[in-house]
């Protein structure tokens, strides 16, 4: 009986990021799909928690395209997700700089000004979640970044420092200031 064509190895959920990267470099495009699937939602949540509302999928796509183009420079000293957050954060900063420049030349009409969560009101089911989101809104951008990376993404202070381009000590200070602000906000509400 003639053996059939050799079947490709099945995708394994337990493959590490480095193993998937090696597989992709060896020519297996499915490894890229697995990597994107593994990290894309976390990137989308990070962008949303950092205040992005429009073009999140485009931002996530740009992050992956840049990351895969420079994977040879990823040494694996931090986790791949931390590295991806770093890339995405830089893209968000670039985007905001570009938006600021365009806003300087194009006056914003009254009707264009929407409250930060105005578009989300219809989606909010529970009042408690709305209060939490407002408490995050009360934080400075850096505090919100550090706090959401720590609490929503579970990053260590070392990883947070790498993403935001700061030090572990500064990340700790931002986190503790943030949690005090959030707790006081929720207590007063």
């Amino acid at each position, binding site marked *: 009986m003639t053996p059939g064509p050799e079947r490709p190895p099945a995708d394994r959920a337990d493959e590490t990021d480095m193993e998937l990267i090696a597989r992709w470099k060896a020519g297996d495009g499915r490894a890229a799909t697995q990597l994107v699937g593994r990290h894309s939602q976390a990137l989308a949540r990070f962008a949303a928690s950092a205040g992005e509302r429009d073009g999140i999928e485009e931002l996530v796509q740009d992050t992956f395209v840049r990351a895969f183009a*420079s994977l040879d420079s990823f040494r694996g000293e931090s986790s791949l997700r931390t590295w991806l957050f770093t890339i995405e954060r830089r893209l968000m900063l670039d985007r905001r700089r570009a938006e600021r420049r365009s806003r300087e030349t194009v006056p914003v009409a009254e009707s264009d000004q929407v409250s930060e969560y105005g578009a989300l009101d219809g989606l909010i089911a529970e009042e408690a979640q709305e209060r939490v989101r407002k408490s995050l809104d009360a934080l400075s951008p850096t505090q919100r970044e550090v706090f959401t990376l720590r609490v929503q993404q*579970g990053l260590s202070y070392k990883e947070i420092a790498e993403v935001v381009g700061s030090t572990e000590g500064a990340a700790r200070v931002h986190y503790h200031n943030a*949690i005090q602000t959030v707790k006081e906000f929720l207590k007063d509400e």
Partner: protein
Amino acid sequence: MNKCMASDIQEMLPELLHNALPATERGRVEQHVVACESCREELRVLRAVKEAAVFAPAIDAARIARQIPPYRGVLPASAPARSRMTQWLVAATAAVLIIGGGSVVMNRDSATTEKIAVVAPATGTGASELSPVIASPGTSVAAATQSAPVHTFALASDVASLSDGDLVQLMNDMDDFDALPAAEPDPVISVDSGDSL
């Protein structure tokens, strides 16, 4: 403010939330939280923040993966490893030979192989033509080309098979060689190495 004095436990509350603590630490932290109202309150706040719905669209991972170009880097070769210096010598030698446009010959240091040398005219004669000289097996190239300085080169296609010592000698010889052509050299086609972000 968390009135708890166990700051090390407070530091680990986010890890507890993400089930990221080793078993021994998890037991210690959970035991403390049961007994400490301040830490229980803080954990409630953290859980509410973690679970707060963040408006993030569902991402089409397959579509994004299709936008990613295939890997264009250099994979580790299966050929015997060479030192970085040797690889540089090979690349530099091939590049000079291509740019110079001179004819090249293979010179192998073997008593059983016919040696072919390229004879370069002495410096200052004004001529840049290269003449082949064939040394029969067992005869040194120098003996066969006594009247003129000899510069031996290797075929570009065989450069990779030269030993490290041969390559070093080759590069030294090329340093002494005046490769200025009489005619305009052929244009060199540059190789696109690709952009990296």
